Protein backbone atom coordinates (compact mmCIF):
# COMPACT_ATOMS: atom_id res chain seq x y z
CA UNK A 1 0.00 0.00 0.00
CA UNK A 2 1.36 3.36 -0.93
CA UNK A 3 2.65 5.54 -3.71
CA UNK A 4 5.86 5.80 -5.66
CA UNK A 5 7.50 8.82 -7.19
CA UNK A 6 7.95 8.55 -10.97
CA UNK A 7 9.21 12.13 -11.26
CA UNK A 8 10.18 14.08 -8.14
CA UNK A 9 9.12 17.65 -8.99
CA UNK A 10 11.19 20.62 -7.85
CA UNK A 11 10.40 20.29 -4.13
CA UNK A 12 8.15 17.52 -2.87
CA UNK A 13 8.24 16.76 0.85
CA UNK A 14 6.25 14.84 3.44
CA UNK A 15 4.72 17.32 5.91
CA UNK A 16 2.09 17.52 8.62
CA UNK A 17 1.09 20.43 10.86
CA UNK A 18 4.60 20.57 12.28
CA UNK A 19 6.79 19.58 15.16
CA UNK A 20 6.07 21.55 18.27
CA UNK A 21 7.94 21.93 21.54
CA UNK A 22 11.54 22.07 20.30
CA UNK A 23 11.94 25.77 19.49
CA UNK A 24 13.95 26.25 22.69
CA UNK A 25 16.53 23.84 21.18
CA UNK A 26 16.69 25.78 17.92
CA UNK A 27 14.60 23.16 16.10
CA UNK A 28 11.82 24.83 14.19
CA UNK A 29 8.32 23.61 13.60
CA UNK A 30 8.55 22.89 9.84
CA UNK A 31 5.20 21.57 8.62
CA UNK A 32 3.04 22.56 5.69
CA UNK A 33 3.13 26.09 4.26
CA UNK A 34 -0.69 26.21 3.99
CA UNK A 35 -2.14 24.79 7.21
CA UNK A 36 -5.70 25.76 6.34
CA UNK A 37 -5.63 23.77 3.10
CA UNK A 38 -4.19 20.70 4.77
CA UNK A 39 -6.54 20.80 7.75
CA UNK A 40 -9.48 21.03 5.33
CA UNK A 41 -8.19 18.17 3.15
CA UNK A 42 -7.61 15.88 6.14
CA UNK A 43 -11.01 16.79 7.58
CA UNK A 44 -12.64 16.01 4.24
CA UNK A 45 -11.10 12.52 4.28
CA UNK A 46 -12.08 11.93 7.92
CA UNK A 47 -8.38 11.83 8.82
CA UNK A 48 -6.70 12.93 12.03
CA UNK A 49 -5.49 16.56 12.05
CA UNK A 50 -1.85 15.58 12.02
CA UNK A 51 -2.04 13.08 9.15
CA UNK A 52 0.93 13.53 6.83
CA UNK A 53 0.45 14.83 3.28
CA UNK A 54 2.73 15.44 0.30
CA UNK A 55 3.53 19.10 -0.26
CA UNK A 56 4.50 20.03 -3.81
CA UNK A 57 5.93 23.13 -5.40
CA UNK A 58 5.63 23.59 -9.17
CA UNK A 59 6.79 21.75 -11.32
CA UNK A 60 5.17 19.08 -9.16
CA UNK A 61 5.78 15.35 -8.81
CA UNK A 62 4.43 12.53 -10.95
CA UNK A 63 2.93 9.99 -8.59
CA UNK A 64 2.04 6.34 -9.18
CA UNK A 65 -0.48 4.66 -6.88
CA UNK A 66 0.57 1.16 -5.83
CA UNK A 67 -2.89 0.22 -4.52
CA UNK A 68 -6.45 1.51 -4.54
CA UNK A 69 -6.33 4.77 -2.57
CA UNK A 70 -8.96 7.30 -1.51
CA UNK A 71 -7.38 10.72 -1.85
CA UNK A 72 -7.85 14.44 -2.48
CA UNK A 73 -5.75 17.25 -3.94
CA UNK A 74 -5.96 20.86 -2.78
CA UNK A 75 -4.15 24.08 -1.98
CA UNK A 76 -2.62 25.54 -5.14
CA UNK A 77 -4.26 24.66 -8.45
CA UNK A 78 -1.61 22.88 -10.54
CA UNK A 79 -4.15 21.37 -13.02
CA UNK A 80 -4.08 17.81 -11.68
CA UNK A 81 -4.81 14.91 -14.04
CA UNK A 82 -5.33 11.25 -13.17
CA UNK A 83 -4.37 9.00 -16.09
CA UNK A 84 -4.64 12.07 -18.31
CA UNK A 85 -8.17 13.02 -17.15
CA UNK A 86 -8.55 16.31 -15.28
CA UNK A 87 -9.62 16.04 -11.65
CA UNK A 88 -10.90 18.79 -9.35
CA UNK A 89 -9.12 20.27 -6.37
CA UNK A 90 -10.90 19.74 -3.05
CA UNK A 91 -12.90 16.73 -4.33
CA UNK A 92 -12.31 13.22 -2.98
CA UNK A 93 -11.49 10.64 -5.66
CA UNK A 94 -10.34 7.06 -5.84
CA UNK A 95 -7.07 6.13 -7.51
CA UNK A 96 -6.60 2.53 -8.51
CA UNK A 97 -3.45 0.45 -8.57
CA UNK A 98 -1.18 1.75 -11.35
CA UNK A 99 -2.98 5.09 -11.77
CA UNK A 100 -0.72 8.05 -12.45
CA UNK A 101 -1.28 11.52 -10.98
CA UNK A 102 0.36 14.40 -12.84
CA UNK A 103 0.14 18.17 -12.68
CA UNK A 104 -0.08 19.92 -16.05
CA UNK A 105 0.36 23.59 -15.23
CA UNK A 106 0.30 26.10 -12.43
CA UNK A 107 -2.93 28.11 -12.45
CA UNK A 108 -2.93 29.71 -9.00
CA UNK A 109 -0.88 29.30 -5.83
CA UNK A 110 2.52 27.93 -4.88
CA UNK A 111 1.94 24.84 -2.75
CA UNK A 112 -0.27 21.94 -3.72
CA UNK A 113 -1.16 19.04 -1.44
CA UNK A 114 -1.97 15.40 -1.94
CA UNK A 115 -3.78 13.99 1.08
CA UNK A 116 -4.62 10.29 1.27
CA UNK A 117 -7.02 8.33 3.41
CA UNK A 118 -5.13 7.55 6.64
CA UNK A 119 -2.22 9.83 5.77
CA UNK A 120 1.29 8.99 4.60
CA UNK A 121 3.32 6.72 6.84
CA UNK A 122 6.89 7.76 7.63
CA UNK A 123 8.90 7.32 10.84
CA UNK A 124 7.94 9.98 13.36
CA UNK A 125 10.69 12.28 14.57
CA UNK A 126 9.81 14.02 17.84
CA UNK A 127 6.12 13.47 17.33
CA UNK A 128 5.82 14.67 13.75
CA UNK A 129 6.10 13.41 10.16
CA UNK A 130 7.29 16.77 8.85
CA UNK A 131 10.52 17.00 6.89
CA UNK A 132 13.04 19.34 8.50
CA UNK A 133 15.25 20.20 5.54
CA UNK A 134 17.78 22.11 7.70
CA UNK A 135 18.36 19.30 10.19
CA UNK A 136 17.88 16.57 7.54
CA UNK A 137 15.45 14.83 9.88
CA UNK A 138 11.83 13.74 9.79
CA UNK A 139 9.66 13.04 6.75
CA UNK A 140 11.11 10.56 4.26
CA UNK A 141 14.80 10.22 5.16
CA UNK A 142 14.96 13.88 6.14
CA UNK A 143 14.92 15.09 2.55
CA UNK A 144 12.86 16.09 -0.46
CA UNK A 145 11.50 13.12 -2.42
CA UNK A 146 13.44 11.77 -5.41
CA UNK A 147 12.57 9.44 -8.27
CA UNK A 148 11.89 5.92 -7.07
CA UNK A 149 10.95 6.83 -3.49
CA UNK A 150 8.07 4.78 -2.15
CA UNK A 151 5.90 6.13 0.65
CA UNK A 152 3.51 3.89 2.57
CA UNK A 153 0.00 4.91 3.57
CA UNK A 154 -1.88 4.28 6.83
CA UNK A 155 -5.36 2.82 6.61
CA UNK A 156 -8.49 4.76 7.50
CA UNK A 157 -11.77 2.99 6.79
CA UNK A 158 -13.73 6.16 7.53
CA UNK A 159 -12.77 7.74 4.20
CA UNK A 160 -14.88 5.35 2.07
CA UNK A 161 -18.03 7.39 2.76
CA UNK A 162 -16.40 10.60 1.56
CA UNK A 163 -15.69 9.50 -2.03
CA UNK A 164 -16.99 12.11 -4.47
CA UNK A 165 -17.57 14.71 -1.74
CA UNK A 166 -16.08 18.14 -2.20
CA UNK A 167 -15.75 21.27 -0.09
CA UNK A 168 -18.13 24.18 -0.47
CA UNK A 169 -16.62 27.41 -1.71
CA UNK A 170 -17.47 29.23 1.55
CA UNK A 171 -14.91 27.37 3.65
CA UNK A 172 -12.08 27.43 1.09
CA UNK A 173 -9.23 29.90 1.45
CA UNK A 174 -9.49 32.76 -1.09
CA UNK A 175 -6.20 32.64 -2.92
CA UNK A 176 -5.34 35.63 -5.04
CA UNK A 177 -2.46 37.04 -7.07
CA UNK A 178 -2.83 40.35 -5.21
CA UNK A 179 -4.00 39.50 -1.70
CA UNK A 180 -4.62 41.93 1.15
CA UNK A 181 -2.72 40.48 4.09
CA UNK A 182 -3.91 41.39 7.57
CA UNK A 183 -1.28 42.06 10.23
CA UNK A 184 -1.34 42.54 13.96
CA UNK A 185 1.27 44.58 15.79
CA UNK A 186 4.40 42.75 16.83
CA UNK A 187 7.50 43.55 18.88
CA UNK A 188 8.68 46.76 17.23
CA UNK A 189 5.55 47.97 15.39
CA UNK A 190 4.89 50.74 17.91
CA UNK A 191 8.44 52.00 17.59
CA UNK A 192 7.78 52.94 13.97
CA UNK A 193 6.63 56.49 13.27
CA UNK A 194 3.11 57.19 12.03
CA UNK A 195 4.51 58.07 8.60
CA UNK A 196 6.41 54.79 8.39
CA UNK A 197 3.32 52.80 9.35
CA UNK A 198 1.31 54.72 6.79
CA UNK A 199 3.90 53.90 4.16
CA UNK A 200 3.71 50.22 5.09
CA UNK A 201 -0.03 50.06 4.49
CA UNK A 202 -0.05 52.38 1.44
CA UNK A 203 2.73 50.54 -0.43
CA UNK A 204 2.15 47.65 -2.78
CA UNK A 205 4.83 45.03 -2.22
CA UNK A 206 5.95 42.46 -4.75
CA UNK A 207 6.88 38.94 -3.72
CA UNK A 208 10.50 38.63 -4.84
CA UNK A 209 12.21 35.64 -6.38
CA UNK A 210 13.71 34.95 -2.95
CA UNK A 211 10.62 33.18 -1.68
CA UNK A 212 10.99 29.70 -0.24
CA UNK A 213 9.93 27.60 2.72
CA UNK A 214 12.16 29.69 5.03
CA UNK A 215 10.88 33.13 4.12
CA UNK A 216 9.36 35.43 1.52
CA UNK A 217 11.38 38.51 0.74
CA UNK A 218 9.27 41.38 -0.55
CA UNK A 219 10.34 44.27 -2.71
CA UNK A 220 8.82 47.74 -2.60
CA UNK A 221 9.77 51.31 -1.92
CA UNK A 222 12.28 50.93 0.93
CA UNK A 223 10.75 51.68 4.31
CA UNK A 224 12.57 54.58 5.89
CA UNK A 225 12.94 54.64 9.67
CA UNK A 226 14.25 57.56 11.68
CA UNK A 227 15.66 55.44 14.46
CA UNK A 228 18.07 52.57 14.06
CA UNK A 229 17.25 49.34 15.82
CA UNK A 230 19.77 47.33 17.79
CA UNK A 231 18.00 44.26 19.00
CA UNK A 232 19.11 41.19 20.85
CA UNK A 233 18.28 37.89 19.19
CA UNK A 234 14.89 36.56 20.30
CA UNK A 235 12.15 34.19 19.17
CA UNK A 236 10.32 34.56 15.86
CA UNK A 237 7.35 32.68 14.38
CA UNK A 238 5.71 31.74 11.09
CA UNK A 239 4.30 35.04 9.83
CA UNK A 240 6.72 37.39 11.60
CA UNK A 241 7.34 40.42 9.34
CA UNK A 242 10.94 41.57 9.71
CA UNK A 243 12.31 44.90 8.54
CA UNK A 244 15.78 44.44 7.03
CA UNK A 245 18.50 47.12 7.25
CA UNK A 246 17.98 47.97 3.55
CA UNK A 247 14.34 48.95 4.21
CA UNK A 248 12.84 45.82 2.64
CA UNK A 249 10.57 43.34 4.39
CA UNK A 250 10.97 39.61 4.79
CA UNK A 251 8.19 37.41 6.18
CA UNK A 252 9.22 34.24 7.98
CA UNK A 253 7.56 31.08 6.70
CA UNK A 254 7.26 27.42 7.83
CA UNK A 255 11.01 26.62 7.83
CA UNK A 256 12.05 29.89 9.50
CA UNK A 257 14.86 29.98 12.04
CA UNK A 258 13.57 29.87 15.60
CA UNK A 259 15.18 33.20 16.44
CA UNK A 260 15.94 36.47 14.73
CA UNK A 261 17.43 39.86 15.41
CA UNK A 262 15.65 42.18 12.98
CA UNK A 263 12.81 44.48 14.05
CA UNK A 264 9.45 42.68 13.99
CA UNK A 265 7.14 45.24 12.44
CA UNK A 266 4.09 43.01 12.22
CA UNK A 267 2.71 39.48 12.34
CA UNK A 268 0.53 38.00 9.60
CA UNK A 269 -2.68 36.74 11.20
CA UNK A 270 -3.07 32.96 11.20
CA UNK A 271 -6.06 32.88 8.85
CA UNK A 272 -4.23 34.99 6.25
CA UNK A 273 -1.06 32.87 6.25
CA UNK A 274 -2.48 30.65 3.45
CA UNK A 275 -3.04 33.64 1.13
CA UNK A 276 0.51 34.75 1.79
CA UNK A 277 2.03 31.27 1.45
CA UNK A 278 0.21 30.71 -1.85
CA UNK A 279 1.45 34.01 -3.32
CA UNK A 280 4.15 33.52 -5.95
CA UNK A 281 7.13 35.63 -7.01
CA UNK A 282 5.80 38.62 -8.96
CA UNK A 283 2.45 38.66 -7.12
CA UNK A 284 1.60 41.91 -5.37
CA UNK A 285 0.33 42.28 -1.87
CA UNK A 286 -0.79 45.01 0.47
CA UNK A 287 -1.01 45.10 4.25
CA UNK A 288 -3.76 46.16 6.60
CA UNK A 289 -3.40 46.30 10.38
CA UNK A 290 -6.13 44.75 12.53
CA UNK A 291 -6.45 44.37 16.30
CA UNK A 292 -5.48 41.21 18.18
CA UNK A 293 -9.18 40.76 19.00
CA UNK A 294 -10.11 40.78 15.30
CA UNK A 295 -7.34 38.25 14.61
CA UNK A 296 -8.56 36.00 17.42
CA UNK A 297 -12.18 36.21 16.19
CA UNK A 298 -11.17 35.39 12.62
CA UNK A 299 -9.22 32.38 13.86
CA UNK A 300 -12.09 31.23 16.07
CA UNK A 301 -14.53 31.50 13.19
CA UNK A 302 -12.38 29.23 11.03
CA UNK A 303 -12.00 26.74 13.89
CA UNK A 304 -15.79 26.69 14.38
CA UNK A 305 -16.35 26.11 10.65
CA UNK A 306 -13.78 23.32 10.69
CA UNK A 307 -15.49 21.66 13.68
CA UNK A 308 -18.80 21.73 11.81
CA UNK A 309 -17.12 20.20 8.76
CA UNK A 310 -15.54 17.46 10.87
CA UNK A 311 -18.87 16.65 12.52
CA UNK A 312 -20.56 16.44 9.12
CA UNK A 313 -17.82 14.17 7.73
CA UNK A 314 -18.02 12.04 10.90
CA UNK A 315 -21.72 11.59 10.12
CA UNK A 316 -20.93 10.47 6.59
CA UNK A 317 -18.35 7.90 7.56
CA UNK A 318 -20.04 6.27 10.55
Amino acid at each position, binding site marked *: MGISIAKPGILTTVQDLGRIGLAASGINRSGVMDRVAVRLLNALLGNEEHSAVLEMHFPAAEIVFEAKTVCVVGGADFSPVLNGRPISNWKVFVANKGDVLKFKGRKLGSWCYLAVSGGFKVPQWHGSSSTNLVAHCGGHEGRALIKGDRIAVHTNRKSAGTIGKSLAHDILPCYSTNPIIRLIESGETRQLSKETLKQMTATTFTVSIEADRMGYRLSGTPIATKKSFELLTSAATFGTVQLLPDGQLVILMADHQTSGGYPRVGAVIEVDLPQLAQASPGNQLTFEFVTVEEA*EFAFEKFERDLRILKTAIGGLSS
Partner: protein
Amino acid sequence: MKHRIFTLSESSATIELGSKIDPDVNRHAIGIAQFLSDHPFPGFIEAVPAYSSVTVLFDLMEVRDVANASAHEFVSARLEEASRMAIYIEPDHTKEIEIPFTVGKECSLDLGVVAAEKGISEQEVIEIFISRPYRVYMLGFLPGFAYMGGVDERISVARKASPRLKVPAGSVAIAGSQAGIYSLPSPGGWQILGRTDVDLFSPTKKVPCLFSPGDTVRFVLK
Protein backbone atom coordinates in the same frame (compact mmCIF):
# COMPACT_ATOMS: atom_id res chain seq x y z
CA MET B 1 14.27 48.50 32.51
CA LYS B 2 10.69 47.67 33.20
CA HIS B 3 9.55 44.60 31.32
CA ARG B 4 7.07 44.77 28.46
CA ILE B 5 4.78 42.11 27.00
CA PHE B 6 3.74 42.05 23.37
CA THR B 7 1.97 39.80 20.90
CA LEU B 8 4.51 38.14 18.62
CA SER B 9 1.58 36.61 16.72
CA GLU B 10 -1.96 35.83 17.86
CA SER B 11 -0.75 32.47 19.20
CA SER B 12 2.50 33.62 20.80
CA ALA B 13 3.49 36.37 23.23
CA THR B 14 6.85 37.68 24.37
CA ILE B 15 7.97 39.19 27.64
CA GLU B 16 11.02 41.38 27.18
CA LEU B 17 13.08 41.96 30.32
CA GLY B 18 15.89 44.14 29.05
CA SER B 19 17.97 45.09 26.08
CA LYS B 20 21.44 43.93 27.12
CA ILE B 21 23.29 40.63 27.33
CA ASP B 22 23.27 40.21 31.10
CA PRO B 23 23.54 36.89 33.00
CA ASP B 24 21.04 37.98 35.67
CA VAL B 25 18.42 39.03 33.13
CA ASN B 26 18.97 35.79 31.22
CA ARG B 27 18.66 33.75 34.44
CA HIS B 28 15.30 35.43 35.03
CA ALA B 29 14.24 34.63 31.44
CA ILE B 30 15.20 30.96 31.81
CA GLY B 31 13.39 30.90 35.17
CA ILE B 32 10.20 32.24 33.58
CA ALA B 33 10.37 29.62 30.82
CA GLN B 34 10.88 26.90 33.43
CA PHE B 35 8.06 28.16 35.64
CA LEU B 36 5.67 28.12 32.67
CA SER B 37 6.75 24.58 31.68
CA ASP B 38 6.35 23.39 35.29
CA HIS B 39 2.93 25.10 35.63
CA PRO B 40 1.48 24.96 32.12
CA PHE B 41 -1.78 26.83 31.50
CA PRO B 42 -4.42 25.17 29.27
CA GLY B 43 -3.20 25.45 25.68
CA PHE B 44 0.45 26.04 26.65
CA ILE B 45 2.79 24.63 23.99
CA GLU B 46 6.27 25.83 24.76
CA ALA B 47 8.26 28.62 26.40
CA VAL B 48 11.34 29.72 24.50
CA PRO B 49 13.94 31.70 26.46
CA ALA B 50 16.22 34.13 24.61
CA TYR B 51 18.95 36.54 25.79
CA SER B 52 16.63 38.88 27.66
CA SER B 53 13.15 37.66 26.75
CA VAL B 54 10.83 34.67 26.84
CA THR B 55 8.31 33.79 24.16
CA VAL B 56 5.39 31.54 24.98
CA LEU B 57 3.69 29.61 22.19
CA PHE B 58 0.12 28.47 22.77
CA ASP B 59 -2.94 26.92 21.15
CA LEU B 60 -5.21 29.88 20.62
CA MET B 61 -8.47 27.90 20.69
CA GLU B 62 -7.62 26.07 23.93
CA VAL B 63 -6.73 29.35 25.59
CA ARG B 64 -9.92 31.03 24.30
CA ASP B 65 -11.94 28.14 25.69
CA VAL B 66 -10.73 28.90 29.25
CA ALA B 67 -10.11 32.65 29.06
CA ASN B 68 -12.90 35.05 29.94
CA ALA B 69 -10.93 37.84 28.36
CA SER B 70 -9.03 37.66 25.08
CA ALA B 71 -6.38 34.97 24.77
CA HIS B 72 -3.71 37.62 24.64
CA GLU B 73 -4.82 39.15 27.95
CA PHE B 74 -4.98 35.72 29.55
CA VAL B 75 -1.48 34.77 28.42
CA SER B 76 -0.08 38.19 29.36
CA ALA B 77 -1.33 37.61 32.90
CA ARG B 78 0.38 34.19 32.98
CA LEU B 79 3.63 35.82 31.83
CA GLU B 80 3.33 38.51 34.52
CA GLU B 81 2.79 35.84 37.13
CA ALA B 82 5.72 33.70 35.91
CA SER B 83 7.94 36.77 35.89
CA ARG B 84 7.11 37.49 39.55
CA MET B 85 7.49 33.87 40.62
CA ALA B 86 10.73 33.15 38.81
CA ILE B 87 12.79 36.08 39.94
CA TYR B 88 14.53 34.39 42.87
CA ILE B 89 14.63 30.82 41.62
CA GLU B 90 17.81 29.40 40.18
CA PRO B 91 17.00 27.28 37.09
CA ASP B 92 17.52 23.50 37.50
CA HIS B 93 19.45 21.14 35.32
CA THR B 94 22.18 23.49 34.14
CA LYS B 95 25.48 21.79 33.43
CA GLU B 96 29.13 22.52 32.75
CA ILE B 97 30.38 21.23 29.43
CA GLU B 98 33.95 21.05 28.20
CA ILE B 99 34.46 21.53 24.46
CA PRO B 100 37.84 20.37 23.13
CA PHE B 101 38.67 22.08 19.85
CA THR B 102 41.43 22.18 17.28
CA VAL B 103 43.25 25.25 16.02
CA GLY B 104 45.05 25.14 12.69
CA LYS B 105 45.20 26.35 9.14
CA GLU B 106 42.33 24.09 8.01
CA CYS B 107 39.87 25.01 10.71
CA SER B 108 40.81 28.44 12.09
CA LEU B 109 39.57 30.26 9.02
CA ASP B 110 39.45 33.74 10.57
CA LEU B 111 42.05 33.52 13.34
CA GLY B 112 44.51 35.60 11.28
CA VAL B 113 41.86 38.26 10.60
CA VAL B 114 40.96 38.56 14.29
CA ALA B 115 44.63 38.74 15.36
CA ALA B 116 45.44 41.37 12.71
CA GLU B 117 42.42 43.51 13.58
CA LYS B 118 43.21 43.45 17.29
CA GLY B 119 46.99 43.81 16.84
CA ILE B 120 47.87 40.70 18.84
CA SER B 121 49.26 37.29 17.90
CA GLU B 122 47.07 34.37 16.89
CA GLN B 123 48.26 32.50 19.96
CA GLU B 124 47.16 35.37 22.20
CA VAL B 125 43.70 35.36 20.61
CA ILE B 126 43.28 31.69 21.47
CA GLU B 127 44.73 32.12 24.98
CA ILE B 128 42.33 34.95 25.72
CA PHE B 129 39.43 32.98 24.18
CA ILE B 130 39.95 29.88 26.34
CA SER B 131 40.82 31.80 29.51
CA ARG B 132 37.19 32.16 30.61
CA PRO B 133 33.99 30.12 30.72
CA TYR B 134 31.00 31.13 28.59
CA ARG B 135 27.34 31.14 29.51
CA VAL B 136 24.84 29.55 27.11
CA TYR B 137 22.20 32.27 26.92
CA MET B 138 19.88 30.65 24.41
CA LEU B 139 19.58 28.24 21.49
CA GLY B 140 18.49 29.29 18.06
CA PHE B 141 19.55 29.84 14.45
CA LEU B 142 20.27 26.11 13.86
CA PRO B 143 19.23 22.97 15.77
CA GLY B 144 21.50 22.92 18.84
CA PHE B 145 23.27 26.22 18.06
CA ALA B 146 24.09 27.90 21.39
CA TYR B 147 24.40 31.65 21.66
CA MET B 148 27.10 32.22 24.28
CA GLY B 149 28.12 35.57 25.68
CA GLY B 150 31.01 37.22 27.46
CA VAL B 151 33.77 37.27 24.84
CA ASP B 152 36.73 39.41 26.01
CA GLU B 153 36.87 42.86 24.39
CA ARG B 154 40.51 42.25 23.46
CA ILE B 155 39.38 39.68 20.88
CA SER B 156 35.91 41.04 20.08
CA VAL B 157 35.39 41.71 16.35
CA ALA B 158 32.33 42.36 14.21
CA ARG B 159 30.87 39.61 12.04
CA LYS B 160 32.14 39.32 8.48
CA ALA B 161 30.83 41.91 6.04
CA SER B 162 29.65 39.16 3.72
CA PRO B 163 28.76 35.80 5.26
CA ARG B 164 30.37 32.55 4.14
CA LEU B 165 28.03 30.41 2.06
CA LYS B 166 29.02 27.30 3.96
CA VAL B 167 30.57 27.20 7.40
CA PRO B 168 31.66 23.65 8.33
CA ALA B 169 29.85 21.92 11.20
CA GLY B 170 31.76 22.16 14.49
CA SER B 171 33.22 25.58 13.70
CA VAL B 172 33.89 27.54 16.90
CA ALA B 173 33.21 31.18 16.16
CA ILE B 174 32.84 34.66 17.66
CA ALA B 175 30.97 37.84 16.72
CA GLY B 176 31.02 40.92 18.93
CA SER B 177 30.68 39.70 22.53
CA GLN B 178 29.03 36.46 21.38
CA ALA B 179 30.52 33.02 20.87
CA GLY B 180 28.89 30.04 19.18
CA ILE B 181 29.52 26.69 17.57
CA TYR B 182 27.94 25.80 14.22
CA SER B 183 26.03 22.61 15.00
CA LEU B 184 25.41 21.86 11.30
CA PRO B 185 26.99 23.09 8.06
CA SER B 186 25.33 26.42 7.33
CA PRO B 187 25.82 29.84 5.80
CA GLY B 188 27.20 32.16 8.46
CA GLY B 189 29.10 35.35 9.13
CA TRP B 190 30.81 34.76 12.46
CA GLN B 191 34.63 34.76 12.71
CA ILE B 192 35.89 31.18 12.92
CA LEU B 193 38.63 30.42 15.45
CA GLY B 194 38.74 26.60 15.39
CA ARG B 195 36.75 23.42 15.13
CA THR B 196 35.37 20.79 17.49
CA ASP B 197 34.19 17.28 16.71
CA VAL B 198 31.78 17.16 19.67
CA ASP B 199 28.24 16.39 18.42
CA LEU B 200 26.00 19.30 19.34
CA PHE B 201 22.97 17.88 17.57
CA SER B 202 22.19 14.13 17.71
CA PRO B 203 18.81 13.58 16.06
CA THR B 204 18.30 10.04 17.37
CA LYS B 205 18.68 11.01 21.03
CA LYS B 206 15.66 11.77 23.16
CA VAL B 207 17.21 15.14 23.98
CA PRO B 208 18.74 15.92 20.59
CA CYS B 209 20.80 18.95 21.58
CA LEU B 210 23.85 18.95 23.84
CA PHE B 211 23.39 22.47 25.22
CA SER B 212 20.56 23.99 27.22
CA PRO B 213 20.10 27.63 28.15
CA GLY B 214 21.98 28.37 31.38
CA ASP B 215 24.79 25.85 30.76
CA THR B 216 28.44 26.84 31.15
CA VAL B 217 30.92 26.01 28.39
CA ARG B 218 34.69 25.72 28.79
CA PHE B 219 36.77 25.58 25.64
CA VAL B 220 40.00 23.58 25.84
CA LEU B 221 42.65 23.05 23.19
CA LYS B 222 42.87 19.55 21.84
